[in-house]
């Protein structure tokens, strides 16, 4: 259809119509094809990632149902969990009374404690790690002590914390802090010791001062290591909070489990475990995703 227009255009283009005919008709189809081609792998990827765990989950539910479905079983089967704890599963944010609230609220309370303890651990841990990574003497002096302290189980700190703070709330936060700080310190120190000598030389030629060096070279260069430490740290603090709350009481998800056990609400415990697992998974993904965003392009080439 545009052949004539092309023909009449100019003498120079006279040789081109032959090529134009070939390229014209397949074009719309190839655009459609590429659209489908672009869509298809996405759908495929989603299916590949979602279907297998879903199938596995259903099979596990089935096995669980078969194993504990008989009368007189020690643990509740999925069907019983559903019938007994339906409100907890379907509505995480209900408020029915001062101690009868949805698990979402309890998780948020626990998360707030984690945020305070872990946030403090992140700041102190990165700074201490930077010191150890930079100074040979700080490393020689502090590293052996840290290596001993980091093996102390989280809950072993709790009595000390309770004695020191005389209150359960700061004690729980302290336990989070002391649990999550070690991997942050150690990974930061390793990251800083691994800053390439070339980057240090650049900083020396430019005569960057300590503060400039920290923000311009040290932090970005060690960021992948720091985020590895933070990721391990946030996982550990989520492990520790549940245990700490079981002992200190209050509103958190850990205390909920303890309370449910004391009043034999096994189905509630099962639901709480699922909440804890999902939230822990999300915490890990959030820190990892944030790390990926911050350290974009930080790997040397």
């Amino acid at each position, binding site marked *: 259809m545009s052949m004539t227009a092309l023909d009449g255009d100019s003498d120079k283009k006279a040789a081109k119509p032959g090529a134009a005919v070939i390229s014209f008709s397949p074009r719309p189809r190839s655009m459609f094809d590429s659209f489908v081609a672009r869509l298809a792998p996405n759908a495929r990827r989603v299916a590949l990632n979602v279907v297998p765990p879903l199938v596995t989950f259903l099979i596990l539910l089935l096995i669980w149902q078969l194993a504990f479905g008989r009368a007189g079983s020690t643990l509740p089967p999925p069907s019983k969990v559903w019938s007994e704890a339906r409100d907890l599963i379907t509505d995480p944010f209900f408020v029915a009374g001062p101690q009868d609230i949805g698990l979402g609220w309890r998780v948020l309370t626990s998360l707030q404690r984690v945020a305070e303890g872990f946030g403090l651990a992140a700041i102190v841990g990165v700074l201490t790690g930077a010191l150890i990574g930079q100074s040979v003497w700080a490393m020689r002096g502090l590293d052996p002590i840290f290596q001993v302290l980091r093996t102390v189980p989280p809950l072993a700190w709790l009595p000390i914390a309770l004695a020191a703070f005389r209150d359960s709330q700061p004690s729980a936060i302290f336990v989070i802090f002391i649990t999550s700080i070690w991997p942050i310190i150690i990974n930061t120190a390793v990251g800083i010791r691994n800053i390439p000598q*070339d980057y240090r030389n650049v900083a020396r*030629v430019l005569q960057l001062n300590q503060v400039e060096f920290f923000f311009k*070279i040290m932090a*970005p260069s060690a960021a992948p290591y720091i985020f590895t430490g933070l990721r391990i740290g946030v996982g550990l603090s989520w492990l520790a909070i549940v245990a700490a709350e079981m002992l200190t009481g209050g509103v958190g998800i850990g205390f909920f489990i303890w309370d449910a056990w004391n009043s034999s609400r096994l189905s509630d415990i099962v639901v709480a475990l699922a909440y804890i697992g999902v939230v822990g998974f999300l915490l890990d993904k959030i820190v990892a995703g944030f790390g990926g965003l911050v*350290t974009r*392009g930080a790997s*040397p080439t």
Partner: protein
Amino acid sequence: MSAYLKLDHIDKSFSRGAQTTEVLRDVNLVIENGEYVSIIGHSGCGKSTLLNLIAGLSTVTNGGVLLEDREVNSPGPERAVVFQNHSLLPWLTVYENVALAVNKVFSGKKTRAERHAWIMHNLELVQMAHASDKRPSEISGGMKQRVGIARALAMQPKILLLDEPFGALDALTRAHLQDSIMQIHAQLGNTMIMITHDVDEAVLLSDRIVMMTNGPAATIGEVLPVRLPRPRKRLELVTDRAYIAAREAVLKFLYERHRLVEAA
């Protein structure tokens, strides 16, 4: 001869525990303002050590490095270094890499707009202004080295130190960058000291070639002035008698009188 940079009886030895290795012994050299000097020698002869001493990245054991009659023993932007492996910071863009240097060296001396113009000017000098928003991982090896040169030039150094700047590049890219460096040298008249182990590169670029003996306890074996008129064109030089003679002199020094036995 006006001594711009003077290396005065430099010894350098490294000690680890009780063991001491003497790398350089009694190195003496005087470099004039605006001169292009190459240091050539077999690997392990301490040429990089010598450059690090001039840069102030390591300190002399005996003797001294004097720049305009003042001793230098710490690094500084007036002796900018172009590192062998470019050493760009991978988390910064090309522009930001140069900006890091410019903002540090010229903070308080230039306004924000002047600094921006200066950054772009230096990127244009190495023909990299078009890639100012790219990260180092997105550009080729030769381009990275261009940015490394721009960063060093942007510090407006008294002396530009080049540590095997083209060693990691392929021959064609290397030739391009050599031409760029010659152009920049002609344009700015900087004093440049370059480490190399490429004989052709040394003869093509240098006013003088400093040839190092083999280590341990290496020193300057010979200094060869290259009396070729500038601007130099690599194609015309191929058949130039002075060029061939200079090339031969360096080769003879390296492979006849100071052959590296271990390298065989």
